[in-house]
Structures are given as C-alpha cells and as structure tokens.
C-alpha cells in the first residue's frame, strides 16, 4: 500500500519534513492498532495454552520430542516453562508475566522436571564411587532412560536438553551440580571440589585420547615429570581416573568410557 502511494504521487512528497511527519503519525497509528491486536491475540493464546497444557500433560511427561517443541515455543515467546519453580524465573520475561505463564502451563511441566532432577541426583550419587563425581551427560541420559534397577517401567524417556534444564532448576539449592565440558563432551560435577586447570587439562586429554600416561603428558603438554605425576596422583586420589598397570607404561583412564557401547 505504501509503495503504491510512493509510485503514484512521489512528487507530492518532495518536502522531506512534511513526509517524515506524516510517516511518523502513521507509524504511531499502526503501532497502537498492532499492540491492541497483539494483546487480544495473546489473551486468546493464553487460554489456549492453558487448556493445551491440561489436556496434554501426559504427553509432556512421556514424549521428549513434544517436550522439546513445547520448550522451544515457550522460549520463542519469552517464557520460562519452569518459572514457577525457581526464584530466578520470577523476574524473567517481564516479572509478573513469567509467573502467570508458569501457573497456566501447569504443574505437569514442573513436576516432570522435578522428578527428572531427583533422578539425576540419584544417578550421580550411585555412580560416585565409580567416577569420583564427574559423569558424562550422555551416561546420565542412558541410565535414566533405562530406569531404576528392579522397577518395571521405571525409565523416563529424556533427552540431554531435558537433563540440562532439570539441573538448572536445581540452582536455588546451592549449586551442588555444575556442568563442565571436557574434550567436547558435557559432564555433570556433583562433588564440591572443583578441578584446577591442570586437572581439567588432563581429563580433557583423556576424554580425547581415551587414556594418558606420564610420558604422554610430558610430550604433549610440555610438563615436567614431577608436575605430571602430581596431577595424576590428585586425580587418582579423587577417584576421577582408573589405573591400568598392564601396559608398557602405567595408563590412566577415564571411567566415562567404561559403559560405552553397551
């Protein structure tokens, strides 16, 4: 419409000041009518979303693809689906709006992520003696999908994204669970002791190469023997690596590869 006008009477708008003023007023009109239409659309959408979450609560719980789409939709309109469950969310997406959304999306979404968070905590606790408190997210996902031992139908179909969201929801509990990326894979750390840079570096090398020896650390990282030994001793003491003494040189492996391919 605007382009037609320009084409037909461009000469009539040769005065720049007049044209910009008219455009400004027209723009304001458009903005107002758009805002009204949008507010109306939103309230219709609100009601629809509320009904939707009630009727599809079961789907939200059982279907990870559905959940991912649902989460993407929420993010696209600036809503945190877990807003009701943590303090941070209350101030997100314009304060009141965030918690109103959460109320409407219903407890089904919150319940799901709460239950998932509980499972994540369980898995980390159960595997601590095997991995020292550092577990790959892929392994957590596998174990949760498989379910609790001896419980029929106890598995939850979840994705790594679901797990990440569940961990974020645990933040108000004091940051017991942190994520760290090593060699391209995401890990969850469930012990308070943080890795120092040297330790992180070695675990990263192990993640990429499978295992490490003192000579490899000296050669690839240009470390002195004493430094390499000190770091690896720390990692062994923290149960973060397993020792293999049947090679030519003692090898140090990450437990992350222990159950892979199974």
């Amino acid at each position, binding site marked *: 419409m605007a382009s037609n006008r320009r084409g037909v009477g461009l000469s009539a708008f040769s005065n720049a000041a007049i044209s910009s003023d008219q455009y400004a007023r027209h723009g304001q009109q458009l903005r107002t009518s758009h805002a009204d239409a949008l507010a109306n659309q939103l309230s219709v959408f609100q009601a629809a979303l509320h009904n939707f979450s009630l009727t599809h609560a079961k789907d939200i719980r059982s279907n990870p693809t559905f959940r991912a789409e649902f989460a993407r939709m929420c993010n696209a309109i600036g809503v945190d689906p877990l807003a009701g469950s943590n303090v941070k969310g209350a101030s997100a997406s314009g304060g009141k709006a965030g918690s109103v959304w959460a109320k409407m999306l219903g407890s089904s979404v919150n319940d799901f992520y709460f239950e998932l968070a509980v499972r994540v905590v369980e898995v980390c606790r159960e595997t601590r003696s095997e991995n020292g408190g550092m577990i790959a997210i892929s392994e957590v996902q596998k174990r949760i999908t498989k379910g609790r031992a001896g419980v029929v139908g106890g598995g939850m179909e979840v994705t790594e994204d679901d797990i990440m969201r569940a961990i974020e929801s645990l933040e108000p509990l004091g940051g017991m669970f942190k994520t760290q990326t090593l060699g391209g894979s995401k890990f969850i750390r469930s012990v308070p002791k943080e890795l120092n840079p040297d330790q992180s570096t070695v675990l990263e090398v192990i993640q990429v190469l499978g295992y490490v020896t003192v000579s490899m650390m000296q050669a690839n990282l240009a470390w002195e023997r004493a430094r390499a030994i000190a770091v690896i001793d720390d990692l062994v003491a923290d149960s973060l690596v397993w020792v293999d003494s*049947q090679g030519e040189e003692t*090898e140090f492996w990450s437990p992350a590869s222990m159950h892979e391919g199974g």
Partner: protein
Amino acid sequence: MAATSPESSLSSFSTTAYTPSTTAYTPSTTTQAISSSGFNFPTYTSFPPFYTLQPNLTTRTHQLELWSTLISSYCAYYRIFRLSLSSLPTDLFSNANIHRSLKPGDVRTVLDHMSKPENGPRIDWIPSTTRNEQSSSCYVYWKTPGEWADALHGWVDETGQKGTVLTVYELREGDAVRSKEWRDMDEGMLRKVLNVLVKRGKAQIFGQEENAGVKFF
C-alpha cells in the same frame, strides 16, 4: 567326588578361541556354550583398568562389586557350581582382545570379597585337604544354599514325593530333574543344600556317598 560335567565344559572354554568385542559376544565355532549366542559380557570387561586392582580404595570397592556381579552372572549362565583356581575359565578373568587379565592374586582378592557374609556370601571357600594350605577352590552361590533348598523342597512337594526316599544320584542326575536348575550340581554343594533342609527339619539323610538316600518331609 566332584561332579565331572561342569569341569569338562570348563576345560572346553579354556581352549576355545574367544575374541570378545566391545559390543557383542561373537561365539567361536568350537564352543560348547549352552545357547548359541553365549554369555553377554558387559561393556566394562573391555575396559583395561578393570583387570588392575585399583589403588584408590573407593574405586576398588566399586571394582570388586563389578567383578562379583560378573562372576555370579557368568556362573549362573553356564551353571558353574564350583571354581578351581588352577583351572579358571579364561574368558571370565581375561580379555584376549585387549591383552589384559586379572592376576591370580587379585582373583583371590575378588573371591575373598565375595566370601564375606556381608557380601552374600556369593562364594564359599572349600577347605583344602592339606593342612595349613590355602583353599584353592570354592562353591559359587549364584543362588544361595537357602534358595536351592527352597527350590529342591518345592519340587519334591509339587511332585508328591514327600515321604519317599530319593538317592543323591537321582536328585543330581535323575531323569526327573533333567529340566531342573540344580541338575548336575557339584555333590559337595548339594550336601550343603540338603543339610539346610535337615536343619529346617524338612529332610533326613541315610547312608553314604552316592548311595545316600534322602527322605523329605
């Protein structure tokens, strides 16, 4: 005295060319495995450090648990009632693919762990016949003697054989027990199971050796 059939299947295992992979067990052509697909070795049996006794005690405790589970499952699958340190199944304690094997001393450490009451016990050392000599063989309790006692007595009851006298031979190798899990059980172990029933007042034993008779109540 010991049953011969488990041992003959054990020796066939030590000579077969077993090549485990990380994903699936590929059976050798000369194996006499119970089923055509063979025992499904868990992935961690391809993890080299699994065969080194871990220096960190927390990690070691977990490792011993994994070994215990592995040995119990393997013996249950192949119905092995007794392990002898001088002729252990090689594919259980070593992985030829990765050139790793559990040292004999460490095998004993694992079995000691399994022999503790708080851990089952999942094995029972058989005292050596020579004085002051360490045990070199053990019974494997992938079912406990109590569970075997229940199974045995349950079968006697269901088949209406309470009150009749059955020989130890019949209980171990008779046609009637062809399909039973305890068939060909090591005789020494069967006697332990029968003694459980005797203690419970559910059985009485007459006579000696293979001619011994058992009456169930």
